[in-house]
């Protein structure tokens, strides 16, 4: 039996890889210099480390070192990209095109600009697999559009958007293309030139690096993209992001990117095998389960499933020695389930029944077998306790029932 508890929530965060940790350790107390100290060896040592990391990150996304700006994480990268572009290009226009399943860091940045009267925003829908139609992007762009911001891959259902095509359309129409690649960079091949990406957000802790550090890629050529800084200070990072650099974190992010790039092809095959085994196991042993997300254009480690007639949070409670997450938000005051799952056209009831499995570098086949058994067992137990399962078995159409909600 595998060691418990099992961590299978790698979209939320990942453990720091031992190789990353070892690369970081000397930069805490031995090589502690400020990368901005230009006149002694302590500063030079730190600057060297930061530059090495810049190169490692650039290599992962096929960019140039000087195009990498360090931030505190992807939320800051998203805010800086979106608000920075809208502010810088305000003479040119004020329209943003994004989509309804974006991360809150993107959606709420857009909403903040709307509220402040600084931008108007088009929120594109997604299809039943969670994918944006590039043609809809083309139609949404106007002469006032300054920014298109669409994520590379979704954090809940794993669907990979046709980013290269969206990027090409934005480029043709002269809009800046920002891409939140938090779930994709380091997991699947990302190429800022092939994909026509102008700004790209990355987070370290999603790729076996430390929390609290991220990066923003800012295209320097063809075209050169400009952003207005959102933080005033010493003018670090070519004036785009002031603040003393988090050298240890940056070293960790760099090393995490290097490891991810060198192992990506092999690791993807392994993850895909594990994920497909988990999916097949669940679908073979349980009826009335449905996949949320694209059947093929999906992150290798992602599996999001709705178990009809079972509420997600109660299922999580039954899987107490397994860390996964649910699209049910029974704890929130609104009682509304995941906005991402709902955007796919999935009913609220099935959205409440969804579970996200996030496989990662340290998951094993034994863990997948264990999780398959436990999930099957718990779903069956909870269905025996579910009035909805009983009604459905009795042939009652649940949609025809007049429910007496609170």
């Amino acid at each position, binding site marked *: 039996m595998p060691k418990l508890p099992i961590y299978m929530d790698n979209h939320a965060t990942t453990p720091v890889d031992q190789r990353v940790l070892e690369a970081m350790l000397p930069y805490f107390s031995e090589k502690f210099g400020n990368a901005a100290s230009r006149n002694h060896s302590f500063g030079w040592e730190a600057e060297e480390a930061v530059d090495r990391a810049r190169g490692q990150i650039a290599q992962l996304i096929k960019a140039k070192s000087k195009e990498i700006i360090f931030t505190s994480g992807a939320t800051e990268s998203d805010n800086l990209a979106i608000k920075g572009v809208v502010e810088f290009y305000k003479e040119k226009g004020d329209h943003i095109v994004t989509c309804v399943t974006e991360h809150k860091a993107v959606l709420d940045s857009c909403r903040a600009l709307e509220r402040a009267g600084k931008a108007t925003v088009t929120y594109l829908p997604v299809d039943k697999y969670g994918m944006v139609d590039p043609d809809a992007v083309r139609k949404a762009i106007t002469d006032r559009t300054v920014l298109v911001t669409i994520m590379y891959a979704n954090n809940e259902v794993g669907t990979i958007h046709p980013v290269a095509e969206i990027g090409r359309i934005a480029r043709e129409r002269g809009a800046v293309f920002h891409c939140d690649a938090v779930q994709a960079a380091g997991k699947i091949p990302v190429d800022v030139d092939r994909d026509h990406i102008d700004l790209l957000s990355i987070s370290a802790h999603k790729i076996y690096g430390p929390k609290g550090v991220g990066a923003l890629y800012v295209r320097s050529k063809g075209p050169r993209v400009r952003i207005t800084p959102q933080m005033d200070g010493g003018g670090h990072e070519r004036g785009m992001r002031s603040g003393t650099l988090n050298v240890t974190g940056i070293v960790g992010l760099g090393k995490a990117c290097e490891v991810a790039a060198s192992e990506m092809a092999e690791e993807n095959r392994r993850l895909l095998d594990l994920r497909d085994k988990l999916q097949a196991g669940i679908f073979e042993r349980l009826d009335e389960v449905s996949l949320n997300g694209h059947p093929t254009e999906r992150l290798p480690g992602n599996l999001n499933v709705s178990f009809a*007639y*079972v*509420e997600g*949070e*109660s299922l999580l*409670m*039954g899987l107490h020695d397994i860390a996964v997450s649910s699209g*049910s938000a*029974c*704890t*929130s*005051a609104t*009682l509304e*389930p995941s906005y991402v799952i709902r955007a796919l056209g999935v*009913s*609220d*009831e099935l959205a*409440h029944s969804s579970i996200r499995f996030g496989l990662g570098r340290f998951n094993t086949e034994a863990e997948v077998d264990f999780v398959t058994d436990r999930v099957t067992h718990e779903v069956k137990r909870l269905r*025996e*306790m*579910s*009035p*909805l*399962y*009983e009604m459905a078995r009795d042939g009652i159409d*649940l949609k025809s029932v007049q*429910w*007496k*909600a*609170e």
Partner: protein
Amino acid sequence: MAYSDKVIDHYNNPRNVGSFDKSDADVGTGIVGAPECGDVMKLQLRINPDSRVIEDARFKTFGCGSAIASSSYVTELVKGKHIDEAMTIKNTVIVSELNLPPVKIHCSVLAEDAIKAAIGDWKKHHEDGEPAAAEQRKAQEG
């Protein structure tokens, strides 16, 4: 958010899970909540028509652990109680027994509603609805 020990106990060992025959005149069935809200409780009470005492109870719940625990606890709570007494049960009793946090209070409200709905259903058969059975019994007694 951690669950209280009592919620975990009811979740792992739910009391009185199951169903009675809905068409049995002595059974009152209450179904409250809605699937799109993530909570549906079905509570069934077997009520003695003469003493009006709840003799047995069963539940089935679609919902979070706290919803399952609330309905499981209610089946224990109502057993042996006269329906007039059961009608006075407040959700706060469930909240304090299970140590429910503020975000889970709606589960206890739903459980209270389920008791009222089940007794209301039983009363429909025995008071205003189908008095036939009760009258027949009276006739036999007389």
